[in-house]
């Protein structure tokens, strides 16, 4: 049990280091076991610092830096053991344009082994999608259409009384 945990731990950490430095070039990151001798009696601490910075604690990071660190953790686990699908709602809300497009590029890569369904308001994210789905509120209710659909489909889905 301890060995299975440790091999998972080190594999995810290896991914985390690599993903964090690709999302935050020049930065570095790692996990620290609170009790390396008996991992189950303690937890896992995440440490991460963007380039040229020394972050004492993750709470001191900015909104964008926290988003990047959170995503690096999720993607590190995805790479180790992909879940069938990822449902994410405006994960790029606090990201600037450069970080948004780095995250979108990475999702595009990871979407070869898992499906990603992501709500976004940012062009940098939309640009990298395999499929764009539009949602609109018409005639008192929501309807959905695929952006490449023709107007006829829009009428079918959204026309008339809801």
């Amino acid at each position, binding site marked *: 049990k301890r060995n299975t945990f440790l091999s998972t731990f080190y594999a995810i950490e290896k991914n985390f280091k690599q993903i964090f430095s690709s999302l935050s070039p020049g930065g570095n990151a790692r996990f620290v076991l609170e009790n390396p001798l008996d991992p189950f009696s303690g937890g896992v601490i995440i440490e991460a610092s963007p380039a040229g910075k020394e972050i004492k604690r993750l709470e001191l990071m900015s909104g964008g830096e926290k988003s990047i660190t959170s995503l690096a953790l999720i993607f590190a*686990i995805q790479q180790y053991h992909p879940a069938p699908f990822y449902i994410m709602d405006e994960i790029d809300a606090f990201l600037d344009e450069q970080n948004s497009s780095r995250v979108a590029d990475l999702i595009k890569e990871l979407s070869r082994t898992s499906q990603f369904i992501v709500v976004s308001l940012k062009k940098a994210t939309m640009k990298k999608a395999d499929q764009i789905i539009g949602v609109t509120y018409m005639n008192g209710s929501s309807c959905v259409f695929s952006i490449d659909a023709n107007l006829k489909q829009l009428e079918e889905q959204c026309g008339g009384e809801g």
Partner: protein
Amino acid sequence: VYIKKIAIRGFKSFGNRKVTVNFSKGFVVVVGPNGSGKSNLLDAIRFGIGMLSAKSMRAGSFSDLIFYSKSGSGRAAKYAAVSLYLDNTDRRIPVNSDTVIITRQIDLDGKGVYRLNGRTVSRSQIVDLLEAAGISPDGYNMIPQGEILEVIRKGPVEIRRLFENIA
């Protein structure tokens, strides 16, 4: 496994007209104006896979999940129903069919029904089958709106447990 299609009727802002969405396998981005129903579409997916907490679908109670409407622009619904069509050619869900259809329906007095490929089953049967494939409504792979900053607020023990479940 991936989500091929979803069919929604009477769930949150989706009215009495059945709305179906075909998803592609890779990177799908959902766009639209504020208040159009994007987050509700994601809530419908989590509802379909058995989400129990109304609060995490931003509803006060289960009846808030059923479409209600201003008089005139459409009748309020009597029930909400979501069907998820999951591609199962890789058989990660331990069911012997290429497509697994999960349907969940609730009516105004909160009574719920789950169906698997058309047959009525219990919630725990659905949840067990999905968990075998690594699908859970509260998984680390579900990030609701505004909650991306919550991920690193998890304590050290919670992170350790996350790794244990993955192992």
